């Protein structure tokens, strides 16, 4: 019996992984060969997907990208014995693209069966929780604090401080919530993790719950991720069945329950207070702060809100120790960040590296330049509210503070590349349009200003009074920045202003029509 690993990740499925799996089954049966296909997550090299690995003499030999039509040829080439074939890549982990990564949070993604607790445990899973259960709650929080882990959802707030606040609230009902709304374009690390290693998120939330005294957890998952929903629900059921969730977590006598709640297609519900409103079954209108969710959160109770990647990194920190994790990174950005390369890029996918590598390394060494072969003119970092960064700044290191110094932000680590055919006025207009579509409506500068911004940019597109309209646009940006309750209205000016600042030639001197 030969084991073949075929990704079941929705990105791989979007490129035909299910059809490849079916073809392998058919072809093996026709040849009387015994194979079993294990569905894994994706390793994140999407330009090689569907990337199929064959277990052979203690190694995993990779082939990719495989289409169903390639399958008979692969059998003809004796791939079950590691036979040579034009699609053969050798051991995946040895490909330069992977060998130079530092996979901590993603250590198992693409390698293991996401639904299988035994597989998870065999690859280092649940050691972190075991350790946490043997420690005093405050000591667990101290580990998270000392690791230097900052929230990966965008705001980069120190996770340990948030947890400490929740721990310090009087005993009673507390909650752990996971923000799995991942609405930013160019980001997919949350999805990959939930589809590829959901148990690490489940373990991370369980550690959080037992550390701060919360017995109930909720994962707020965006409705656009039906596949992640299926993987998460199956993994949660498996964790319950093995007593890693429920009334007696790992025989500790401590309770932790967990369920998934679906969002309903509203970007603003990724903002943490809007997410809490939505979890309570209401319109996702942003709450005024204070009080902080850590003090008065879900149903008015002390609540941890953390991103998927933040929580899924905690088991490793507890397992290996705070110093191990803090040993990666630069300055105040400790540890690693799963970066996501998207847009017009030749080798798009997930690159997990310690903070400190440059945008250029990412875009060219990993990304291989643009997919179109034209020069990369701009990248947008950190989703629709993130700034556009011009090629002149590609030597900036990936670090929260270094990017902020250049007027950009790292956000959730998504990087979208654009080649030199991009029209930056249209991108600025889109930023305003997106804000108009997604505004929760609470603040006037966001609700009305975004539509006004679209109109101004339409004038500029038509070449009408570009200088005057740019001035009005700048005033509007300032108003949105100052007068918005949350980042949707308050940060939409970032992509707009950066487009104007770095790509002024696109705004001025357009033909009038």
């Amino acid at each position, binding site marked *: 019996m030969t084991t073949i690993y075929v990704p079941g990740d929705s990105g791989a499925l979007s490129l035909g992984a299910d059809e490849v799996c079916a073809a392998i089954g058919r072809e093996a049966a026709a040849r009387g060969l015994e194979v079993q296909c294990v569905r894994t997550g994706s390793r994140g090299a999407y330009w090689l997907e569907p990337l199929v690995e064959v277990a052979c003499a203690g190694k995993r030999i990779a082939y990719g990208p495989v289409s169903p039509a390639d399958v008979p040829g692969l059998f003809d080439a004796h791939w079950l014995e590691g036979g040579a074939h034009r699609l053969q890549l050798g051991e995946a982990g040895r490909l330069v693209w992977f060998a130079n990564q530092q996979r901590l949070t993603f250590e198992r993604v693409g390698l293991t069966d996401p639904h299988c607790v035994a597989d998870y445990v065999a690859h280092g899973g649940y050691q972190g929780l075991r350790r946490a259960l043997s420690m005093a709650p405050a000591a667990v929080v101290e580990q998270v604090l000392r690791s230097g882990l900052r929230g990966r959802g965008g705001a980069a707030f120190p996770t340990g401080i948030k947890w400490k606040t929740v721990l310090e609230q009087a005993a009673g009902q507390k909650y752990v919530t996971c923000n799995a709304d991942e609405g930013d374009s*160019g*980001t997919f690390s949350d999805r990959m993790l939930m589809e590829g290693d959901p148990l690490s998120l489940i373990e991370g939330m369980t550690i959080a719950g037992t550390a701060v005294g919360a017995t109930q957890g909720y994962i707020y998952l965006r409705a656009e991720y039906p596949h992640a929903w299926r993987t998460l629900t199956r993994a949660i059921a498996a964790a319950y069945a093995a007593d890693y969730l429920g009334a007696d977590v790992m025989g500790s006598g401590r309770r932790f329950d967990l369920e998934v709640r679906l*969002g309903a297609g509203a970007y603003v519900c990724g903002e943490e207070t809007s997410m809490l409103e939505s979890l309570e079954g209401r319109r996702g209108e942003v709450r005024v702060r204070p009080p902080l969710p850590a003090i008065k959160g879900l149903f008015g109770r002390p609540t941890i809100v953390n991103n998927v990647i933040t929580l899924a990194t905690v088991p490793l920190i507890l397992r290996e120790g705070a110093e191990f994790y803090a040993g990666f990174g630069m300055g105040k950005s400790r540890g690693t960040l799963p970066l996501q390369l998207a847009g017009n890029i030749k080798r798009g996918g997930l690159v997990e590296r310690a903070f400190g590598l440059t945008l250029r390394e990412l875009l060219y060494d990993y990304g291989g330049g643009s997919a179109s072969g034209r020069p990369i003119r701009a990248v947008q970092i950190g989703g629709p509210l993130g700034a556009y960064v011009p090629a002149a700044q590609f030597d900036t290191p990936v670090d929260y503070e270094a990017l902020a110094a250049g007027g950009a932000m790292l956000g959730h680590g998504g990087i979208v590349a654009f080649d030199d055919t991009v029209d930056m006025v249209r991108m600025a207009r889109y930023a305003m349009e997106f804000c108009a579509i997604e505004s929760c409506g609470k603040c006037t500068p966001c609700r009305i200003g975004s539509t006004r911004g679209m109109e101004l940019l339409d004038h500029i597109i038509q070449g009408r009074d570009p200088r005057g309209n740019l001035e009005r646009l700048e005033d509007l940006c300032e108003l949105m920045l100052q007068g918005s309750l949350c980042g949707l209205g308050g940060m939409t000016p970032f992509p707009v202003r950066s487009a104007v600042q770095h790509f002024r030639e696109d705004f001025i001197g357009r033909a009038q029509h």
Partner: protein
Amino acid sequence: MQTPAVDQSQEVSRILAQFKDRPGPLLEVLHAVQAAIGFIPPHSIGLIAEGLNLSRADVHGVVTFYHHFRSAPPGRHVLQVCRAESCQAVGGEALAEHARTRLGVDFHESTPDGRLSLEPVYCLGNCACSPAVMLDGRPYGRMTPARLDGLLAALNAPADTEA
């Protein structure tokens, strides 16, 4: 074929009984109703409000706030085309335009024969394989106008007429 209103009400009552005692159940109820019926029938708003001890305005407000909830039946198939930045960077807008012309409808509309609804989506999390679309919940990456035509033509196949 559309379910008669009485059956819809029975379905909604069944869902209410299942969810009403859970904390903050409204979104869950709406998801369940839409999964069972395909949309949130306007006549069920009162029933839901009553069942959950909310006002009709509360329920209506939630249904309209979220892009995901529909107040009218969708087409038999739903095509979601990603319109966000990463997909735009590799021809997503041309693909969106192609979908519109080819289907003869705009976003948020269904073809007159009720066969397909065209919906915009702002990121499917498949940005490394942009442009991305989802057809009836199945993801497709690196989409081109020609491949999209192929997918839509497959929906026309005779086996589909009953779907």
